[in-house]
C-alpha cells in the first residue's frame, strides 16, 4: 500500500508555512544557496537525472526542457512560471502558492541559474487575488532579505482570466501584452519564446519540486514513484468524497488508495466516474480504481495523467449534464484562433443541450462522435482536443445514459441529489 509522501506539502500544516521565516525553518533557501555555487550544467544534469517531469499536464522531462536553451548565444534567457491554473478540477498550484510561495521563488532562482536567465516571470491567473497577494508578499520579502535582486529578478504578472493563457505560447503572448492566443511552433519557446528570446516555461509544481531535488539529490527523488514517473506529486481530490484536498504521494498511487486516505466516496454513495487529470482528460469509471496514477499507467488505460485533478462523481451525477457543463466551459474559453475549436465547441454545446433536454435521436450521438473526430487532432492547440475528451469518453462508458435522456424525453436524474446539500433538507 502506497503511503502519502509529503515533500512539497510537508509543512503546510504549520501556521506560518507561507512566511520567509517559516520556510527557512525547514531549510528554505539552502538549496538555492547551494545551487548558485554549482555549475549550471550540473544542475540541469541533476534535474535530468532526477526524472522530474512537467507537472502541468504534458509530463515533458523538465531537465531536458532546460537543456534545450541554447548556451553562449549572448541573448537574454527567460524563465516563465505557468501559474495560470484554470482547468476545471485542477487545484494544486493555488494551495501550493498559498501555503508555500517561497518554494516557488527558490525554484525560480535555481532554474534561472541553470538556464542562465536573469529574469523569471510568474504568470498567475487574475481571479485568485488571495494568491496574488500572498506571492507578491513573498517576492517582496525575498527582495528585502536579499534573496532576490542579486542577479535574479522575479516578476509576478497577473492574467486577465483566460483559460487559453495556460497554453504556454498563448501565455507568452499575453505576458508580452498581446491577446493570448497560441503561437505557431516552431520556433519553440526554447529558441524564441518571451520577447523572441530563449525561454523555459514550467508549471508551478515542476519548479517548486526543484529545491528538494537539489538538497536531497537525484537518487532520493528517483527512489520515489514508478519506472518512468519519478518523485512525488500533488493529487487534488475533489467532488463527492468525504475529505477532499491535496494528497501528495509518489507517482503510481491508485485512486483506490487515495480514496481510502480520503475517507472514501461520500457515505451511502458509490463512485460513478472520475477525471484523472482535469476535465480535458478522458473520464474513468469505477473500473479504473486500480490504474496506477503515473504518466504511463493512465495513458495505457486510455486517458492522461494531466494535472492529477481527481474529480469524483458518484451515482447521483448525470454524466450528460456534467459533460455539457464542461463543454460550455470550453466554448466560453476557446480563443477563436482555429476553426475546429471555435466553431466545434459552439456546435457541441448546442447538441449536448438538446441531448440533455431529451431532444434528438441516437443518430445525434453518432454525429456528436463524428464531430469530435473532426475536432480532435485538427485544432491548433490542445484546447480543442481537450474539449472532446469528456464527450467521447462519456459516450464510451455511458451511452445508455445518453439514450435514456432521449427515450425519457429529459434528464432522468434529480440534479439536487448530486449537490452537497442534498438530503440536508435544502
Amino acid at each position, binding site marked *: 500500500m502506497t503511503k502519502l509522501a509529503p515533500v512539497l506539502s510537508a509543512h503546510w500544516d504549520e501556521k506560518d508555512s507561507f512566511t520567509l521565516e517559516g520556510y527557512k525553518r525547514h531549510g528554505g533557501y539552502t538549496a538555492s544557496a547551494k545551487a548558485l555555487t554549482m555549475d549550471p550544467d550540473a544542475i540541469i544534469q541533476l534535474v535530468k537525472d532526477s526524472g522530474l517531469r512537467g507537472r502541468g499536464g504534458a509530463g515533458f522531462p523538465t531537465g531536458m526542457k532546460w537543456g534545450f536553451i541554447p548556451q553562449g548565444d549572448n541573448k537574454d534567457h527567460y524563465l516563465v512560471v505557468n501559474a495560470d491554473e484554470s482547468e476545471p478540477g485542477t487545484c494544486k498550484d493555488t494551495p501550493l502558492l498559498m501555503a508555500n510561495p517561497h518554494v516557488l521563488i527558490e525554484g525560480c532562482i535555481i532554474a534561472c541559474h541553470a538556464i542562465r536567465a536573469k529574469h523569471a516571470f510568474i504568470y498567475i491567473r487574475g481571479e485568485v487575488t488571495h494568491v496574488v497577494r500572498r506571492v507578491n508578499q513573498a517576492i517582496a520579502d525575498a527582495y528585502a532579505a536579499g534573496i532576490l535582486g542579486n542577479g535574479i529578478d522575479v516578476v509576478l504578472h497577473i492574467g486577465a482570466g483566460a483559460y487559453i493563457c495556460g497554453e504556454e505560447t498563448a501565455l507568452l503572448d499575453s505576458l508580452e501584452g498581446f*491577446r493570448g492566443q497560441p503561437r*505557431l511552433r516552431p520556433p519553440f519557446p526554447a529558441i524564441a519564446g518571451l520577447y523572441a528570446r530563449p525561454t523555459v516555461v514550467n508549471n508551478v509544481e515542476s519548479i517548486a519540486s526543484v529545491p528538494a531535488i537539489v538538497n536531497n539529490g537525484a537518487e532520493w527523488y528517483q527512489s520515489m514513484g514508478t519506472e518512468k514517473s519519478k518523485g512525488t506529486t500533488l493529487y487534488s481530490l475533489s467532488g463527492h468524497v468525504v475529505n477532499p484536498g491535496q494528497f501528495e504521494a509518489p507517482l503510481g498511487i491508485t485512486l483506490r488508495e487515495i480514496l481510502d486516505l480520503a475517507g472514501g466516496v461520500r457515505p451511502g454513495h458509490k463512485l460513478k466516474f472520475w477525471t484523472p487529470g482535469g476535465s480535458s482528460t478522458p473520464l474513468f469509471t469505477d473500473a479504473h480504481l486500480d490504474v496506477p496514477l503515473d504518466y504511463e499507467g493512465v495513458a495505457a488505460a486510455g486517458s492522461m495523467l494531466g494535472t492529477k485533478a481527481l474529480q469524483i462523481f458518484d451515482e447521483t451525477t448525470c454524466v450528460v449534464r456534467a459533460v455539457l457543463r464542461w463543454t460550455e466551459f470550453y466554448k466560453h474559453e476557446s480563443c477563436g484562433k482555429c*476553426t475546429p475549436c471555435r466553431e466545434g*465547441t459552439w456546435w457541441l454545446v448546442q*447538441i449536448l443541450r438538446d441531448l440533455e433536454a431529451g431532444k434528438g435521436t441516437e443518430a445525434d450521438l453518432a454525429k456528436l462522435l463524428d464531430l469530435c473526430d473532426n475536432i480532435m487532432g485538427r485544432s491548433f492547440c490542445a484546447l480543442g482536443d481537450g474539449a472532446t475528451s469528456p464527450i467521447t469518453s462519456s459516450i464510451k462508458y455511458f451511452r445508455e445514459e445518453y439514450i435514456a435522456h432521449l427515450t425519457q424525453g429529459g434528464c432522468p436524474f434529480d440534479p439536487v441529489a448530486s449537490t452537497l446539500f442534498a438530503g440536508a433538507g435544502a
Partner: protein
Amino acid sequence: MTTEVVDMITVVIDGFEVTVPKGTLVIRAAEQLGIQIPRFCDHPLLDPVGACRQCLVDIEINGRAFPKPQASCTIPVETGMIVKTQLTSTVAEKAQRGVMELLLVNHPLDCPVCDKGGECPLQNQAMSTGQGSTRFEGVKRVFEKPINISSQVLLDRERCVLCARCTRFSEQIASDPFITLNERGALQQVGIYENKPFESYFSGNTVQICPVGALTGAAYRFRARPFDLVSTPSACEHCASGCDMRTDVRRGKTLRRLAGDDASVNEEWNCDKGRWAFKYVTAVDRLKTPMVRNASGVLEEASWPEALAVAAAGLKAAKSAVLVGGRATYEDAYGYSKFARVALATNDIDFRSRISSDEEREFLAARVVGSSTTYRDIDKADQVLLVGFEPEEESPIVFLRINKQFRKRALKVVSIGSKESIGVEKLKAEFVKVAPGQEASAIAAQSLTSKSVILVGERAAESTGVLSAVAALADATGAKIAWIPRRAGERGALEAGAIGNLLPGGRPVTDAAARVDIAAFWNTDSLPSEIGRNTSQIIEAVHSGKIGALVVGGVDPLDGDNSSATLAALDKAFVVSLEIAPSAVTERADVVLPVAAVTEKSGSFLNWEGRPRAFDAAVSDSLNRSDLRILSMIAEEMGSSLNLGTVTAAIKEIASIGKWDGARVSLNKVNASSQPALTAEQALITSWRRLLDLGTLQQGEENLAGTARRTVAVISPKRAQALGVVDGDQLKISTTQGSVTLSALVENIHDDAVWAPRNSRGSQLLVNLGVAHGAVVTVVKA
C-alpha cells in the same frame, strides 16, 4: 555577378515527386504539381498562421508518420517527406471536409446578396471540399451589420471566417496595425481601436484578400455580381510605382479595380488611390465633343474636322510649344514629342508640369534616361537613401518594398528632409534633418557603397544643387540612382523625348548624330538643334511674344509655381487643349479636343524603373480617341505627317528607334544656394503632396477622401514654444500672395521650417501661397 545557391529538396506528394527550394511550404510544393489543397488563412505573401485548419494533410518523414494531420501551410518540406493530400488520404479528406463543415456553422450563407458570391474562396471550396448540406441544426452567431471600419471599408462580421489575412496584411505588409482580432471563441471579430479608424493607404488590399465577403469596399458594395463583369488586365495611371491592375467593367462602366499580380513590381498589392480612384473617368463633366472658341469668346461644340482645322491653322500661324503633363502614356508622350519636332519644328516641349529646374533636366538626360535601377535593387540594397522623396505618399509600392526589406532584414534607410513623415517613422529610418533648401550638403555627407540605392523624388528639383550632389555621391560611392517621379507618365515622357534637351530613346538634341538618327526614322530633312525651352521659359516666351501658340495635354496649370503667370500665358496664347475633363486650361483654350482616359485606350506607362506597363482598353466601346491619334490628325491638317494612327504603330516605331548608345549629356554641377536669413516670425516652407489629396484623378471619390490624413501645419517644439502654440491651435502661414490657416501639430521638423500638405483640403500651397518648398513664409498664431 554572384548567384545565390539554393538547396533543393525532393518530396513525394500524392505519389508524385517534386523538387523545390528548401523552406518551401508543403502547400506551395503541392501547387507545383497542380495539386490544390483548399485554404483560407494561407497567403503566399503573409507569414503562415495555421488558423483555419482547412489545408490539413497526412505527412510522414522518413517512415515516421505524424500522429495527426498537419496544416500544409505551416510546414516546410523536408528530405524524405511523403505527403498525402485529400486526393490520396481518407484521413486528410475527412479532416478537410470536417473543417469545411465547421467553417460554415456560423457563416450566414447569404451568398445571393453577398458581393463575394461568384468569386468567393469559401463558396468555391465549399463546393469542392464540403458536403452538399450541413448537419448543423442549431443557432448561428449573429452580429449587427455592417460596421464601417473606415469610410471606405465595411465589415460584415458574421461572414468572417477569422483567417486573419486582413490583420496580418495590415501589420506585416503595410505596417499599419489599425485592425486586430478582438474577443474570443466564435465571438472573435476583426475590430478597430476605439478612436482610430482603419486609415491606411493600403486598406483596400484587405478587401481583396478577404476569402469571404466580410470586408467590402463602400464604393463597390452591392454594385455588381462578379459574373457580370468583364475584366481587363491594366496598369495603374496614378503614380510611377507601376502596379499591375485588373479593371472590371460592366456595360461600359468601370465598377472596380483590383491589384494585379506581378511579383517583380507590386507583388499582389496596390494602394487605395490606385484601387478606388477611377470615377473621374465616368464623371458627368467629361469632355465628349470638340469645342472651338467663337468670335465672341465663347466655347461652342464643333465637329472634329472643324476643330482640327481651327487648331491646325492656329498652330501654323504662330511659333508654337508643347506642354504635356505627366499623365500621358508612353505612346502619347511619343506622339507629343514627334508632333513638336515634326509638325511644330521646335524643341520647346516639357512634360514637367510641376516645379522643375534646368539642373533637373540635365540630370534626367545625364543620369536617368535609359537607366535601369529596379525594385530588385531595393531588395538587394545594403542601404536606401531617400532624397526629396516620401515613398508612402509619393510612390506607395516603393514604400511597401522598402518596408518588406526593413521587416525582413532591417534594411537601413536614411531620409534627408526637413520633416519626419509617418512613412519614414514606420521604416525606422535615420532622419537627417536639414532646413528646406539645404539638402545638398547633407547628401554629400552620406557614406554609401556600390550596393546602396539612392531614391530621388521629383521634389529634389525644388532645391538647387541637390541633384548635382546626388550625382556626385553616386559617382564617389558607386551607389545606384533611381529617380522616382510621382506621375505615371513622366518616365515614359522622358524616354520619349517629351523634353527640350532629348529626342526619343535618350538621344541628346545637341548631338548631330542623334538628330540624323531620328530624322531618318521620322523621314524629315532635319530636326531643330537648339535645346528647347523648359516649362517656365515657355511661359515667359508667351508673355514676351516669342511664342504665340500652345498645345497643352493633361496639364493642371495650378501644379507649378507661379501659376498666375501660367494662367495669364494661357489667356494670351492660342491654346489647343487635349483633355478628358474641363479644367483651368479648358477655360482659356481656343480649341478643346476630348481625349480617351486610360481605361478607354490601350498603351503603356514606363514606371520609375523604366519597365513597360502595357494595358489594353478596359472599356472597349469608348468613342474617345487617344492623344496620339488626335495629334496625328492635327499634323495631317497642318500638312505634315506623324504616321501614328494607332498605338500599335507608335509601339513599333518606338521599338525600331531603340535606345541611344552614344555619349550622354554631361551634368554641370550646380551649387546649393545659401539659406536666407529669417526673422522670428519667418520660416522656410516645405511640403509634399499626400497620396490622398485634391488631385484631379481623385475627384468624386468621397469614401476614399474620407481616409485622407488630416490637414495640419507642422512646426518644431522650439518654434511652438516661441509662438506660444500647442497642438490644435490655429497657425497662419502667409506670403505676399496669400495665406492658409491650419491646425498646428508640433512634431519632428527643422526649427527653421514649417510644413503643410501641398494640395489637401484647406491647404493648396501653390495656389494659396504660390510657393511650396524652400521659400520664406510668415508663420504666426492665428
